[in-house]
């Protein structure tokens, strides 16, 4: 698609343009940063409170033993999917537009996964024990973790995903860090020099670099698909009605990509504005991102429908009971928010005008993020609240604990993302140069 991209810049302008963020940033930046720090403080103090008093400060109860915290966890893991998807899968597909967004998408992935990784720790009853009883550490009693438990799968999946995403992201950074090194003086030069391993940009280096990058992409591709499948097994592996369905893995992956892409868009627009990247992150690229979002939105739509159909078609009273209540029961509000945000609103993107209307698209993207959060809330809470024995039914009310920790997580994420935007190239310069007109002497 980037054939039609109308570049009025050459590769010579790339470094100057992209690295402008190393200079004096937009005042919006500081505002955002302060805000994020405040949120982090709120979250941290809530966590301290929880650790000192007990997990009971959150709204969880019997039978809803998981609540907002696991919702946040799944939400952030989902956000973390767009990055590697865009960098890896689209790289293999040679989709040129990814070169403009993959850097920030990967950064988003890394920070989102780090945020997600906090939540299992926040939500366990005895953090201090969880830390060393989850991983298989040798101990005198030969007590090991249970590799048949989806939670242990999760541990491996998430940590692997984090590592690989981190490597992928950093690998892409190396040449760009080198170009920063070549622009700055003194201590900065030293620091960036160390960070880029002393990259020189010789053809040989590029040769191996390309090979490595390709293999890493090939490895990351199945990983992206596996991680959220495994997260979905956290639910699908238990026999709760509303959880115990085979469609969960693809359904979760689609949802993750949907939320991820929406988040990429949500982040790109302000960043693009804040650091004046309009010339490099072209509308055509944003539109491509939207198209991908639209696609996954339809997949998610289908998944919702299938869930309901299967629940009805199975004739299982318990299964149908849960879905009935989801749609018209105590949790109907959350359900319909989810449906409208994830399935209905994105449909306006079928029109090109809307796709190119940044304001509208931004609103829809934000709504999708909201909707995806509610989707996880629905799946977790409404399935647990009223399952098998009517005598055991109960309901869930979020408390200030839940809210504080959620707010904190958003602060934590944006804090790191803003730091990234301030000190690293937001767009992968070397890859951007690739998709720009080649510097040729004879003008064809």
């Amino acid at each position, binding site marked *: 698609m980037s054939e039609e991209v109308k570049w009025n810049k050459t590769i010579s302008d790339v*470094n100057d343009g992209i690295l402008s963020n190393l200079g004096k940033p937009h005042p919006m930046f500081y505002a955002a940063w302060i805000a994020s720090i405040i949120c982090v403080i709120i979250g941290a103090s809530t966590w301290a409170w929880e650790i000192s008093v007990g997990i009971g400060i959150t709204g969880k109860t019997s039978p809803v033993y998981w609540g907002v915290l696991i919702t946040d966890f799944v939400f952030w893991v989902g956000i973390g999917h767009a990055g590697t998807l865009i960098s890896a899968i689209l790289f293999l597909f040679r989709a040129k537009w990814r070169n403009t967004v993959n850097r920030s998408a990967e950064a988003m992935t890394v920070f989102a996964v780090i945020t997600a990784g906090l939540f299992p720790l926040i939500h366990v009853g005895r953090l201090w024990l969880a830390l060393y009883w989850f991983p298989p550490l040798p101990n005198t009693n030969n007590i*090991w973790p249970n*590799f048949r438990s989806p939670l242990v799968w999760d541990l491996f999946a998430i940590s692997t995903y984090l590592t690989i995403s981190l490597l992928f992201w950093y690998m892409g950074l190396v040449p760009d860090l080198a170009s920063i090194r*070549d622009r700055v003086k003194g201590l900065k030069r030293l620091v960036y020099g160390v960070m880029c391993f002393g*990259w020189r940009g*010789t053809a040989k280096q*590029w040769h*191996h670099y390309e090979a490595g990058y390709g293999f890493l992409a090939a490895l990351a591709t199945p990983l992206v698909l*596996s991680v959220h499948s495994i997260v979905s097994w956290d639910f699908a592996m238990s026999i709760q009605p509303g959880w115990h369905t085979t469609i969960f893995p693809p359904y979760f992956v689609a949802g993750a990509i949907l939320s991820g892409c929406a988040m990429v868009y949500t982040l790109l627009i302000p960043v693009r504005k804040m650091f004046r990247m309009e010339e490099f992150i072209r509308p055509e690229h944003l539109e491509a991102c939207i198209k991908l979002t639209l696609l996954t939105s339809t997949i998610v739509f289908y998944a919702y429908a299938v869930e309901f159909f299967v629940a009805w078609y199975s004739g299982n009273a318990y299964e149908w009971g849960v879905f009935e209540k989801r749609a018209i029961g105590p949790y109907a509000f959350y359900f319909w928010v989810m449906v409208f945000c994830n399935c209905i609103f994105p449909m306006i993107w079928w029109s090109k005008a809307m796709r190119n209307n940044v304001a509208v698209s931004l609103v829809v993207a934000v709504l999708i993020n909201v909707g995806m959060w509610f989707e996880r809330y629905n799946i977790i809470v409404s399935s647990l609240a009223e399952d098998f024995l009517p005598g055991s039914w109960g309901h869930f009310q979020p408390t200030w604990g839940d809210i504080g920790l959620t707010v904190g997580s958003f602060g934590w994420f944006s804090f790191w993302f803003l730091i990234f935007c301030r000190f690293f190239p937001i767009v992968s310069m070397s890859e951007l140069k*690739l998709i720009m007109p080649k510097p040729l002497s004879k003008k064809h």
Partner: protein
Amino acid sequence: MKRRPGGVLAVYRYLDQLTDAMKKIKGRSDFDDHEVFSPTSYHEIEEAADYPPSPVRYFTLAGALTGTITGFTLALWIDYDWPLVVGGKLAGLYSLPAYFIVGFELTILFGGLMTILGMLVMGRLPNPKQRILDPRFTDDRFGIFVPNATLDGEQANLLKQCGAEEIRLIESV
């Protein structure tokens, strides 16, 4: 350690001129172990240079296989170390399906780590004594560095003919 040799550095502005030069000097003994610099990885350069396939692939393979084996061994060995029955599922091979997860994850993990390692090793990275011949090479310029050549030498002329923007003498350090 031995000093790194000085030589001639040609700076190009255009990609096609660079590739012309590369094609011309390919295989010539007086251009032995010359270096080509590029701000990004243009395929034209790859073709012009046509290097043998990168051995990074072997690193990846080794890592991946190690990972698979580690994963399954870990899970199964733990079962034999202390067999426990959960949910009517017996330990050991009975529960093998569950162990594909850890097997898979470790495959990816080790594979990825080894790939990076391979890339660094083959790219001679990290190199602390980074010898930056020209800062523009990470911006928008291409370059060819011929060791042990002189400005009035015949290699310099050749590079010049290919449209080099400038030709510099690099001191040996």
